[in-house]
């Protein structure tokens, strides 16, 4: 490793960081536009063409707003918590491979910030550190709603972390490596989604819950908890939490693409090959980010006991049972068709358990009287 390598790494990191920030602005704008469209509204349309500059305007506004430091807040932890929340959110993206290889002269630059051999573990670890940001923010605010929101949020995030950990294990088993780049390369012949539908569904549900997104946005249930753990935060500190949340969405989507949908792979013409890889990756990730918006617009918020039931009683047992099944199939090389069939069946079971099948019981007036 000579000095040129270090320079390349530095340039890569700086460029990726700037692009990520730009991407965040687009993701936030797109969410507001998509949700507005689904609710028959127009959404942001003043700042720039189609309101494209809205996120930047919001950022500038939050930047220049008064930063309120409540008297009851902890002097040290309160200002640090947003930073603890935002930094790991960016770090988690380092292991996402967004392209294959860029060759300039004799140098091969992997289109990934850091190709470490424990990439997937690193991603899970950064997700766990996010809990600290939330818990510390809620505790240090010295106020009721943030505290309740933080405790709820921590319980939710650690519960779904187990489900997420279980769901990636069959993928690791098939790929035989924890390096995210290695996992993508292992999908050259068949994307893992083909054999791993239950894992994918568990990952997806756990991922939505990990981001504290609707319908799992209990920690910031506006109707009960004002804004949850960041109620007392304003100005730039709020913006850091906001960026962390959207960064998590992007990273969870990107990892879903990496694990189950072949990462940067896709058919492409034979020129500008690295660029096509990046385009495929961005397209697939955008589809997942859109799914996040769609889910948010479609499903009502769960009750807290329902949330815990989904996590502990459905996702975790199914995730545990699926591991030996997929391992057995892997050894005995049962025809892939059988595997896909089994996957579809288990997937349907997962979905039917998770999605509300019963209509909510509406009590008639007499019944209401008797129960009361």
């Amino acid at each position, binding site marked *: 490793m000579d000095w040129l390598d270090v320079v390349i790494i530095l340039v890569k990191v700086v460029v990726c960081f700037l692009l990520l920030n730009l991407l965040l602005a687009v993701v936030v704008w797109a969410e507001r536009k998509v949700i507005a469209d689904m609710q028959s509204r127009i959404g942001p349309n003043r700042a720039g063409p189609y309101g494209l500059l809205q996120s930047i305007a919001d950022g500038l506004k939050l930047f220049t707003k008064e930063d309120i430091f409540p008297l009851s807040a902890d002097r040290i932890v309160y200002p640090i918590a*947003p930073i603890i929340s935002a930094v790991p959110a960016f770090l988690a993206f380092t292991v996402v491979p967004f392209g294959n290889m860029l060759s300039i002269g004799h140098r091969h630059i992997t289109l990934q910030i850091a190709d470490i051999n424990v990439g997937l573990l690193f991603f899970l670890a950064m997700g766990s550190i996010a809990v600290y940001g939330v818990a510390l923010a809620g505790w240090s605010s010295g106020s009721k709603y943030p*505290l309740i929101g933080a405790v709820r949020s921590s319980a939710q995030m650690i519960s779904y972390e187990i489900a997420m950990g279980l769901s990636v294990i069959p993928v690791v088993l098939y790929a035989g490596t924890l390096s995210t780049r290695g996992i993508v390369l292992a999908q050259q012949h068949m994307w893992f989604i083909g054999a791993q539908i239950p894992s994918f569904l568990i990952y997806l549900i756990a991922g939505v819950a990990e981001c504290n997104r609707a319908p799992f946005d209990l920690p910031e249930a506006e109707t009960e908890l004002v804004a949850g753990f960041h109620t007392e935060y304003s100005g730039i500190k709020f913006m850091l939490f906001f960026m962390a949340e959207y960064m998590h969405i992007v990273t969870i989507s990107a990892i879903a693409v990496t694990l189950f949908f072949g990462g940067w792979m896709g058919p492409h013409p034979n020129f500008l090959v690295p660029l096509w890889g990046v385009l495929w990756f961005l397209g697939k990730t955008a589809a997942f980010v859109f799914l996040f918006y769609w889910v948010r617009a479609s499903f009502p918020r769960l009750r807290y006991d329902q949330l815990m039931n989904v996590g502990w009683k459905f996702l975790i047992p199914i995730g545990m049972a699926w591991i030996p099944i997929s391992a057995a199939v892997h050894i005995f090389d049962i025809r892939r068709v059988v595997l896909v069939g089994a996957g579809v069946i288990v997937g349907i079971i997962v979905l039917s358990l998770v999605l509300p099948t019963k209509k909510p019981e509406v009590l008639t007036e007499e019944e209401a009287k008797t129960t009361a």
Partner: protein
Amino acid sequence: MLASYLPIAFLLILAGAFALVSVTLSRLISPKDPSPQKLMPYECGIAEIDPPVERFPVRFYLVAMLFVIFDVEVILFFPWALSFKSFPVFSLIAMSVFIFMLGVAFVYEWRNGGLEWD
């Protein structure tokens, strides 16, 4: 091998610096007009009635304990999955026994109401 972590260290510094600088800069240029009402903890527009609760339903602690147990199990799966190809049949049997025992504990937990939330 450690060199592959260099970009992560760079990004850690960059993101940390970004967060710190933006917080400090914002503090410098933002208006400061504190008032006693503004600095009170939020309570829907009225003066705080009670200080924040310090006691929580014991459920949350139970979840935390369960998490510690199950997360250790999940971590155990990773090396198993990685070394699976070296001795597939034996490791499958071993892991099935392990998952079965875990399942027994899980069912016990469930039947005793450890997973109920109310």
